[in-house]
């Protein structure tokens, strides 16, 4: 597919990297020549220097033959204008990043009337992610397949857990619980474990199960599963506003600590049910006074990454039972951050990129690829994909144990007639199934890609 990306900031470059890796023709547009040059040196993409909203520049980037234009510059208005012009000039799909809350309330109108395929708001996306995590506090990440019938959950094995030193093959028999462990992250290595793999403390485990089985499993390993009752949020940014709104709607109590008095008043105005405290969230005394001991979740959403990380570290050190989430805008030091004992880090920009990539995949799906859903896990080192099985798929009607699968790939589950099958060696894939595959090879496009190629790769 031919995709034009306007704006080479964090989101733009992440998108360019991922989408070109997946075999799309990418043209990037940015006014900063150096960015364009660096990016097009690093990936197999073409760069145009200029303003993305100029018709001439878009034409130079080949708008007539493009399938999709993604506008992710820093300015909402510029993004919308880019999309409008692209729509007229090339009749392609358009995606715009629009982050201001004023526009957000009219997102639907904007999307429909301006003919955009997708409007994405990074703050809203991040807050949705956080809200989902708070609903499911023991998992670090939750993704759903088959319209919510299957969940892929990630959690970190706590100290003294029953899972410590347990072999993967023993889990089902010992715990009498049918879950499939599909990936284990230890340090910065991602392993797709076989039966003999032994779990250890602090491993991050990803597993696939139905929601019921998942909560059963969490109960068996003695991890609490109920949704949190209340949340303490430090920092009153736009993300906070979106998050508080969602949490309140879910019946979760919200307390917001914000430094700036005017901002507090604005928040109090728009969130009458929330408890707004004006004060410095980095003061330990203040946090305690506001009942840090009693809450069961803590979200650090200030504008300073370091502050967020330190705050969450402080809280999880004092009260290990509190679920802590920190927002981090630049994740350059991923490796180090992951070593810290933080429950979860949320990065609005990667989430935005992930949403857009998901859309592109879906769009490609209608053209030829068979990927229904795609999730990227563990810093893009692992992918979980849901495939539709169509006619002529090379995997049809063969017992799984006879399939010659690629390395580092696992068929996590099969969904047949809305029923979930945990695949065993004798199971077969038949027409109309949906299959969830977990792999560390990225860039799969079709179910046939799960087979090892004949060249013996």
């Amino acid at each position, binding site marked *: 597919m*031919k995709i034009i990306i306007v704006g080479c900031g964090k989101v733009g470059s992440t998108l360019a990297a991922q989408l*070109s*890796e997946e*075999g799309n*023709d*990418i*043209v990037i547009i940015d006014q900063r*020549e150096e960015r364009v040059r660096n990016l*097009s*040196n*690093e*990936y*197999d*993409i*073409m760069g145009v*220097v200029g303003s993305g909203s100029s018709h001439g520049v878009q034409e130079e980037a080949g708008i007539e033959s493009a399938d999709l234009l993604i506008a992710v510059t820093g300015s909402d208005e510029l993004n919308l204008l880019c999309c409008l012009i692209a729509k007229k000039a090339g009749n392609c799909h358009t995606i715009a990043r629009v982050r201001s809350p004023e526009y957000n309330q009219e997102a639907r109108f904007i999307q429909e009337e301006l003919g955009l395929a997708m409007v994405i708001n990074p703050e809203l996306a991040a807050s949705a992610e956080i809200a989902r995590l708070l609903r499911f506090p023991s998992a670090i990440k939750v993704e759903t397949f088959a319209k919510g019938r299957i969940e892929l959950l990630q959690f970190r094995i706590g100290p003294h857990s029953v899972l410590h030193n347990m072999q993967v093959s023993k889990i089902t028999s010992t715990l009498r619980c049918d879950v499939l462990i599909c990936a284990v992250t230890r340090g910065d290595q991602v392993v797709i474990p076989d039966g003999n793999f032994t779990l250890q403390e602090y491993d991050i485990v990803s597993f696939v199960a139905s929601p019921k089985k998942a909560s059963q499993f969490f109960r068996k390993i003695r991890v609490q599963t109920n949704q949190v009752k209340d949340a303490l949020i430090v920092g009153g940014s736009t993300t906070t506003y979106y998050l508080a709104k969602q949490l309140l709607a879910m019946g979760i109590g919200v307390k917001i600590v914000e430094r700036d008095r005017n901002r507090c008043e604005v928040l109090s105005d728009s969130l009458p049910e929330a408890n707004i405290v004006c004060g410095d969230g980095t003061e330990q005394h203040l946090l305690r006074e506001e009942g840090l001991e009693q809450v069961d979740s803590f979200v650090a959403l200030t504008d300073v990454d370091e502050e967020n990380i330190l705050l969450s570290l402080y809280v999880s050190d004092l009260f290990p039972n509190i679920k802590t989430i920190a927002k981090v805008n630049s994740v350059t030091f991923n490796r180090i951050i992951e070593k810290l004992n933080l429950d979860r880090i949320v990065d609005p920009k990667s989430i935005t990129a992930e949403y857009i990539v998901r859309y592109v995949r879906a769009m490609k799906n209608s053209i030829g690829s068979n990927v229904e859903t795609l999730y990227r896990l563990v810093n893009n080192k692992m992918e979980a994909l849901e495939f539709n099985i169509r006619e002529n798929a090379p995997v049809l009607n063969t017992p799984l144990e006879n399939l010659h699968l690629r390395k580092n790939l696992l068929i996590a589950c099969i969904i047949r007639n809305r029923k979930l099958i945990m695949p065993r060696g004798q199971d077969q894939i038949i027409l109309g199934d949906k299959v969830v595959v977990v792999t560390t090879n990225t*860039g799969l496009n079709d179910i046939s890609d799960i087979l090892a190629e004949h060249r013996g790769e």
Partner: protein
Amino acid sequence: MILNILSWASVLEAVFFLFPALVAVIYGEQVLWIYLFCAFLCAALGLLLRLLRPRENTMYAKEGFFAVALCWILFSALGAVPFVLTKEIPNYVNALFETVSGFTTTGASILSRVEDLSHASLFWRSFTHWVGGMGILVFILAILPGKGNGSNVHLMRAESPGYSVSKLVPKIRQTALILYAIYFGMTLAEILLLIICKMPVFDAITLSLGTAGTGGFGVRSDSIASYTALQQNIITVFMILFGVNFNFYYLMIIRKFRSAFGISEVKVYLVIIVAAIALITWDINALFPSLGDALHHAAFQVGSIITTTGFATTDFNLWPSFSKTILVVLMFIGACAGSTGGGIKVSRIMLLVKGIKNELAVSAHPRSVRKVKMDGHSLSPEIIRSVNSYFALYIIIFAFSLLIVSLNEMDLTTNFTAVAATLNNIGPGLAVVGPTGNFADFSVVSKLVLIFDMLAGRLELLPILMLFIPPSWKR
């Protein structure tokens, strides 16, 4: 990664050796076995290199330069083997000179009578022009299986001529394919036209390969002189066409005529050609029976020299001094960036002139702010800087080469034009190395220096030079 590229290169050369082998079959020549043996040798070497698994797969700018430089050296070293084995050029340095001259599309020869060569070897000489014209690595990029890593652009940048190499389409592989498709199509057109004009098939093919790469190896000692005027005119037109920036043709194909004709480099290139032809015609008119004749020869020589092809229809060594000087100036200007020709390139000259103009204006009005513009885009100071340093480097290399070559005790014209003809990938110079002469009389050292010049000229100085600077070997 570099090893990986090199292994691909030798396998590729093995495939290329099959073409002269085929020619040998057609003409029933004994050299068939030698070419087959060489093909086998290259294939074996390629597979051997493949066994050394690369540790790292990333190609940075530096690895790109190294890979390109080593690849060209390897290609030339292997390509010279058949000449030695067939005993047509028994001396390896001479054979290497001939092959490098082929791959770099120079066309400078050490042979006095090319008719003595077998058809297979003649074909191989011309074929090296064709391969070298568009580039070995561009070819590898076009056929290399698997997903193109983005950093492969460093390879293309290091090999393709011009100050800024841009892709035609987002994917580098497609870009390479498009370039080769245009190249192949134009070569085929020339072959067909020449055959229609009653040129022998073998001559038509080899000359077309030589024209396409802007090389200049002919199959007769008098170069092109013994063909008919019509055939010569066809070659003139195609030489000039192959000296045009290939972006021009791509824009024509996708029907963006306005942007195609908007490329100012192409316009300047054509203006220079017309002006040079006019001046030379006026100057040499007395030597030829009619004005038409003078025009015909002037056009051929100008086209041949500015595109750095190096064919000749007449011995321009005997022309008046003014015409010879014009030709020497054209040698340095060279063809367009993004074409198969050599030289400094028209666009670089344009930038140099514009830079100087700005510099003058700023000296007169110290507070004025000016940007250098080309085709409506303003250029960053880095580009101007790189063009300036390219030019400086060019002069330094030129001076040193001239110094070493002058140890041969030949006259200054010979030495000067020999270096100019090799560094600009033209072929024939003036005096001893003129269209009827050859490079055989130079000493071994001079030949090695000229070999270096040819490679440096073809790869735009930096890649080859980097190989000789030890600090750049380290990471």
